[in-house]
């Protein structure tokens, strides 16, 4: 998945390929891991790489990759959000409920996105202007959203949503729309982070906050902005999440925030801020989904999945620390 613009790829001296490989090192590692996984598990149990399985894997997990896009941006800026799982649960429920209640389909898709942006803008304000550390704000937010959701809905199932609403299940050339969304959004976001003023500002703030301040970058509005955009992606993810099955359980998908964070961290976004790419987190989300799926096909209990997650984060972080601090 190349993310270079057509104009630039016209000039390609050898040096630039070298620096391209260097700066996308982590992404290549993940890609390699994916290939190894597919080949390895596929040989052991060919049903793993059947079209059916691959399709359901992508459909079921594309929304995680999309949520990880926003999360990566937040982490690159030097913050974190542990409430994204609850947010997606809430927004998904809102989306489904609106659909069942007969609102125009387009609103059922857009309103959750808007609400996600507003809620996270609020989080951004608390982090940037009131200077509450993001871990604390989002820890509190997690409870507020989760508790609020269960209190209001009691965890009830939502069903009977009109078929026009089920955007995740639309197919184009045989592939489910979630895949297209995942790819398109990743590419767009990656380009944007790399080439836009805002994107570079986020990298600067995360990488060297002092220098950013001295260079006249306005940190606070940028932080609010990055959280708001993250809310937008969470909204996207929520809509896909809500429409991938015929029913929605109006609870918070368990472990979702951790999975999203894992995708970002393993994808190369350094928790110290300032580095990493959106492309990496999407690949890592796919890798993680593949690992989860492969456990089934390897007859390993799925209950070990979270342990794997924890190990992956640790391994990545330790490697990152080793690279940075030469321990």
């Amino acid at each position, binding site marked *: 998945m190349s993310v270079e613009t057509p104009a630039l790829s016209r000039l390609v001296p050898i*040096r630039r390929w070298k620096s391209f490989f260097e700066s996308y090192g982590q992404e290549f590692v993940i890609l390699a891991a994916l290939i190894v996984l597919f080949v390895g598990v596929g040989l052991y149990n060919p049903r793993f790489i059947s079209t059916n399985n691959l399709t359901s894997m992508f459909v079921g997990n594309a929304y995680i990759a999309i949520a990880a896009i926003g999360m990566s941006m937040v982490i690159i800026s030097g913050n974190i959000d542990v409430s994204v799982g609850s947010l997606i649960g809430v927004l998904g429920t809102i989306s489904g409920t609106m659909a069942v209640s007969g609102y125009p389909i387009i609103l059922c898709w857009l309103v959750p996105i808007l609400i996600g942006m507003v809620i996270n803008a609020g989080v951004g304000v608390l982090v940037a202007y009131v200077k509450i550390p993001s871990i604390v704000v989002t820890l509190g937010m997690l409870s507020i959203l989760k508790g609020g959701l269960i209190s209001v809905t009691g965890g009830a199932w939502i069903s009977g949503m009109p078929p026009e609403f089920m955007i995740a299940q639309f197919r184009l050339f045989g592939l489910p729309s979630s895949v297209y969304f995942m790819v398109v959004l990743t590419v767009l976001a990656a380009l944007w982070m790399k080439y836009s003023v805002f994107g*570079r500002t986020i990298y600067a703030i995360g*990488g*060297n906050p002092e220098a950013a301040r001295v*260079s006249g970058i306005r940190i606070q509005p940028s932080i609010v902005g990055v959280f708001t955009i993250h809310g937008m992606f969470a909204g996207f993810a929520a809509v896909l999440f809500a429409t991938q099955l015929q029913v929605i359980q109006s609870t918070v998908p368990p472990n979702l925030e951790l999975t999203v964070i894992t995708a970002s961290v393993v994808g190369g976004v350094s928790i110290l801020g300032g580095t990493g790419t959106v492309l990496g987190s999407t690949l890592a989300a796919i890798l993680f989904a593949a690992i989860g799926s492969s456990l089934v096909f390897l007859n390993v209990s799925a209950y070990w999945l979270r342990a794997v997650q924890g190990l992956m984060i640790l391994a990545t972080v330790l490697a990152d620390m080793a690279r940075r*601090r030469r321990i």
Partner: protein
Amino acid sequence: MTNLLEVSGISKSFGPVKVLKEISFDVRPGEVHALLGENGAGKSTLIKIVAGVINADEGEVRLDGKAVRFSSPREAAAHGIATVYQELLLFPDLSVAENIYLGHAPKTKWGTLDWNAMRAGARALLDSLDSPDLDVDTTVGKLSVANRQRVEIAKALSQDAKLVIMDEPTAALADADARRLMDVVKRLRDRGVGIIYVSHRLPEIFALADRVTVLRDGAYVGTKPIGEVTEGDLVSMMVGRAIDHLFPKVDTTPGETILEVKNLTYRNTVNDISLTVRAGEIVGIAGLIGSGRTELALTIFGITPATSGEILIDGKPVTISSPDDARRLKIAYVPEDRGSQGLIRPQTVRENVSLAILDRIARAFVVDRRKESALAKDAIERFGIRTRGPEQRVKQLSGGNQQKVVLAKWIATEPRVLIMDEPTRGIDVGAKAEIHALMSRLAGQGLAVLMISSELPEVLGMSDRVLVMRGGRIVAQFDRKDATPDAVGAAMTAAKAGASLESAPAGLRGAAAL
């Protein structure tokens, strides 16, 4: 021809300390004007005023004849003043082109970044600096220090600077890179840019500068065309003829050797150091920034334990791999940066003074508050700390009194070796004298004192012996009677070292990994 920059009657104080006293000098277009002076002479403050980072209390700055008063570095940049600092303000994860244009990037008509224009512009700038091999797309994090500096200069040029201020640009460069940098500076000059070149390296100044201005202790000493001075003249101007004999040095007969260091090495910042300090002796270590003095102290004290070599206390080899080890061996270190390394600013005098001897004022792990208060009160009296009482928070104290608290903390450990790093930096004259008196008294009581200082008069006035460090090594040793300002100053700046430029130490202050 009108002067590009004119500075007249500039004064600046930080709290009670007057850092600049009515400085006046000027810079012409197409001139390299060197600014010379010891650490603490006021050079940094002066260039910060010109660059718009801070404002002067009195006096005037004129650019092209018009009076200006900048409220921010951006404003100064907009007027054509660019600065290349020692601590590089680059973003390691962004590319060279982005760093050069950060904050003033060319935009397309839709408002997005015009990458092509940016890259082309960066390429042109780098070529004009004779750096065709520097790729505009590489991330800055991968570049060597020398190349990063070139990016900084290109950044300065990208803002169409008329006046470029360079603060110790070759401090971190090796010979070849320093020479290339000097070529760059010459090119700039030939283009009509005025350059203020702050450096300690006399050979460079002689190779590059048209005129040189010397500051000393915040005061203007003089400006001379480079052809009319010798190195000796400059050194004299920098350190002053008369050494103030305010230093109450008690003459002692040194006792046994307490601290001995043999072939001590730490990575490449401390190189094969050997020295001895005897009881009752004050050994001063002089040297420029980056010469490795603090790194040496941190190695002896265990923050960055030695990678090879020996440390001996009372003739017996010891291992020091943490500050705790050093403390147990009765070594004390009063750090260079007292605010962040020496004190816990939000805490009280009492808590700070007891910090290093908590285990000794405790019975069965419980801190004995009465002993602690008594200790604090005693320290306040003994060291003459001006404070409302032991319960005052140290951040409210003046610099001199804060330093006394740090000293009190370490004296409470009853050390036998006391290492003091820049003991009177940022302290007013009165407090300076008090601290010097304290040091003399401590030496008189039999402590072995190692004093690192950038203030030559202090080194010369207080030390029984003077060691000069450069590039992580000891390059000269003087007994008190032989230590003259010229001799020591020359050893520090390698003025008499011959034709070649000194090779730069790889370790800058910040490089010592903590």
